[in-house]
């Protein structure tokens, strides 16, 4: 038996690290246990071919709040930026347009004006949502003053949007992005840009109800930083490394290659964890940044839980349908009608909302998209260390791939890889000849590689029934659990996925409040 810690954090993803850092700052002795060889989880690097490095999951930083960066002193802990304020270029076989710095190039004046108008409105809603995302959501139906006050403030903030905006917010919040985009915009590429923001990493096509909510959530995350789409020097993993440094500077001990076998409970209280190798580590509190299903069903075990609660865990929707592709290129590719200066942009390959919706259809029937839509970066343009000299890395978020494929995983993987390459070839003729190595990570691969059940980018769908005070589900929202001393701090908790650090930060705040 080793020493007893105040807090053990399971998982050294960005949320786990931030939660650990904050608790250590508040005086806890904190141990972070990471199953993998490196920190970062979904935001780690992967050498997929000799000399080529790609971010395993998230390949852009765009929702990490400036305030949190300052608080954590990430630059002091080694974080440097290779690129900031990246523009977005939407490409189809027929054309392209570029959105960035409040400008839209490539659309007609009427559409540009409509876009600005819509963006301004969405920004107001996003700021409202951001204010809610920055607080621990209240529990409903309790007599607690804290909960009631928090609910009241939420209502007040909504009212403060003003009568017109409040009504408009309530009108669009439950809508699908397809309707919103086609109501407001005429240009198919602009529509597609809006649609892509709503569906990336989620389990929806643009016609699914609730996709305006996912769009607003994404923009809410983006509203807390002035840096826009950014890539750190050394790739997204550098953000995770800086977070680990910050945590260690605050006194946190981080152990990698230390997979947890189970959470140890005595008399309805957490007393520590058991590692796979048999070591038992004592702690008064365990905070899990692992997805809720794995936390409760695998690490804790249903014998400590009530059946109704287990039902809710079991019903939590967390099957990913988003894949990730990494290509090693022997030279910079050229895209149809795109200037070389645009190649460093965030590139969206999507010709229309219908294109996205058709790509989505496949995932409903256990298949992979025949003509997938993609978000692409070529990070080696900004950071030459990611690829051998003169060569390049292309990373693409590829939508969609069913979690449970009708064909074998290998067949589905090969098929989506070849479909994605064909889709690339259509906008960047000749790119296939540039590919010297490549890989496709299906959701099942991401589940295995990143230890996220379902391989879901956000640890679970962001939908109205898995949102805010009911995320991930009643009884485990507010970063708590039925077991004393067991808390959640991962993307499965409010406000959800993305490189925001908010679940980790809010969990730490909640734990401190309940401890005092």
């Amino acid at each position, binding site marked *: 038996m080793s020493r007893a810690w105040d807090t053990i954090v399971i998982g050294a993803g960005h949320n786990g690290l931030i939660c650990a850092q904050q608790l250590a700052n508040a005086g806890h002795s904190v141990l972070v246990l990471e199953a993998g060889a490196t920190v970062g989880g979904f935001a780690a690097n992967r050498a997929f071919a000799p000399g080529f490095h790609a971010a395993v999951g998230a390949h852009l930083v765009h929702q990490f709040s400036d305030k949190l960066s300052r608080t954590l002193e990430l630059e002091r802990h080694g974080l440097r930026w290779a690129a900031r304020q990246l523009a977005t270029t939407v490409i189809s076989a027929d054309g392209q347009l570029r959105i960035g710095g409040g400008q839209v190039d490539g659309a007609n004046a009427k559409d540009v004006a409509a876009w600005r108008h819509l963006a301004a409105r969405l920004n107001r809603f996003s700021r409202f949502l951001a204010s809610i995302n920055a607080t621990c959501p209240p529990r409903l139906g309790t007599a607690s003053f804290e909960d009631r006050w928090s609910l009241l403030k939420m209502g007040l903030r909504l009212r403060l949007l003003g009568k017109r905006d409040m009504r408009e917010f309530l009108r669009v919040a439950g809508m699908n992005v397809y309707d919103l985009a086609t109501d407001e915009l005429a240009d198919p590429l602009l529509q597609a840009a809006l649609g892509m923001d709503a569906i990336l990493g989620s389990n929806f096509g643009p016609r699914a109800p609730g996709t305006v909510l996912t769009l607003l959530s994404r923009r809410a995350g983006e509203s807390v930083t002035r840096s826009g789409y950014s890539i750190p020097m050394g790739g997204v993993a550098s953000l995770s490394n800086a977070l680990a440094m910050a945590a260690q500077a605050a006194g946190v001990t981080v152990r990698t290659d230390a997979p947890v076998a189970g959470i140890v409970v005595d008399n*309805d209280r957490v007393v520590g964890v058991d590692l796979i190798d048999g070591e038992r580590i004592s702690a008064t509190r365990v905070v899990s940044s692992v997805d809720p299903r794995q936390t409760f069903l695998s690490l804790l075990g249903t*014998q400590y839980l009530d059946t*109704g609660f287990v039902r809710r865990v079991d019903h939590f929707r967390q099957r990913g349908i988003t894949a990730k592709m990494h290509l090693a290129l022997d030279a910079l590719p050229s895209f149809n009608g795109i200037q070389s200066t645009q190649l460093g942009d965030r590139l969206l390959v999507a010709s229309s909302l219908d294109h996205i919706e058709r790509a989505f259809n496949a995932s409903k029937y256990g298949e992979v998209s025949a003509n997938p839509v993609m978000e692409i970066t070529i990070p080696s343009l900004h950071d030459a260390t990611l690829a051998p000299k003169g060569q390049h890395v292309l990373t693409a978020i590829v939508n969609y791939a069913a979690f449970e494929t009708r064909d074998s995983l290998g067949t589905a993987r090969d098929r989506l890889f070849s479909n994605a390459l064909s889709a690339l070839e259509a906008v960047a003729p000749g790119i296939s000849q540039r590919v010297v190595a490549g890989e496709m990570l299906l959701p099942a691969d991401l589940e295995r590689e990143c230890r996220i059940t379902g391989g879901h980018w956000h640890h679970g769908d962001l939908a109205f029934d898995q949102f805010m005070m009911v995320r991930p589900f009643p009884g485990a929202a507010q970063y708590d659990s039925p077991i004393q001393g067991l808390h959640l701090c991962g993307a499965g908790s409010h406000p959800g996925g993305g490189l925001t650090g908010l679940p980790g930060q809010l969990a730490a705040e909640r734990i401190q409040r309940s401890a005092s």
Partner: protein
Amino acid sequence: MTTGSDYPSPPHFRKPLLDTPFHDRARALSQNDQFVPWSGYTTVDVFTTVEQEYFAIRNAATLYDLTPMVKYRVTGADAERFLNRLVTRDVRKLRVGRVSYVVWCNDDGHIIDDGTIFRFSPEDFRVCTAERQLDWFLDSAIGFDVAIEEITSQVAALSLQGPTSAYVLKRFGLEGVEQLKPFEFREFRSAGRDMMVSRTGFTGDLGYELWMRPEHALGIWDELMAVGRTRGIRAIGSQALNLARIEAGFLMPNVDFVSAEHTIRMHRERTPLELGLGWLVDFDKPHFNGRRALLRQKSAGLKRMLVGIDIDGNKPAHNALLYASPKDEQECGFVTSAMWSPTCKRNIALAILDAPHFDAGRRVHADIYLHRELVWERRMVAATVVERPFFAPDRRRMTPPADR
């Protein structure tokens, strides 16, 4: 985790109720066609008269067709752990060959159903329930290595109850059956037929329950009736049994409490503590469904409780509202089951009373309505909170029972 349904073909929609394996005999003995549906089967409510059947329970021997009672087989390495997490009692203490009366709760500590658990081996159990529970059991099985199978139609069951029931079974040829202690069961073999006999029942009297293969059902029925003839054996229906169970202080689901799965209105659910079943709740065992909620309720104190009451006079207090004082506008409770007990010569009832009126010895008043030749009459009658059961003869526990 695996499961199976035991119905080879579902009942036809033109005849939605199934016949039990004893149906032919029940049909023949029924004098007034009083049948009622029970868990998907046609069963007898009254064969002749309730009085005749009730007195047979207390003075002779009775046969009651128990087949519709829902039965599950629970097996597997985690069967004990699964059941221990499911019910409020400590299943680890249940030895092979014993039966345990149990209740199970939802997360809020509210009762979903009650039933009995039979332990056949360390990893083989039978759970008998009032209502179908497969959905709840399967969700409760997540994370446990256990197989759950409904076997209701694979097992025909008879309840043989009454002071002469042990004699009848001995005459039937079950050697050593008199050595069975209450809540014990054993396998017997008689005339080439396997039969499991448990000393259990719903009457609070000496009695046994017999579990057999459906194809043996009619033969066993006929033989029991034949050997029991000199001991006054008769078939009984649900109404007579209901009277016996009230005297025994047993609870009837959907009469004395409503399953938490069925309640719609607030505060209609009941916890075991509220039903006076605190003795079934073991807080010292590992976690079980509803434990946290029940601990909270235990420390906060009960707002209401089900108790027995003894009412003055002889008018059954069916559905009566109860008042602390006859002049009160606001009731302090209500009756769930009531009867004039011919054996106890007492006017008894089960009632839910608000705190603090449920303490034993408290006096309350029952507002009794009597329907007499189309005219409603009303009586406000004093009643006393008393201990349950109302009727508990020594023969219910005596082993071996008297040989008569």
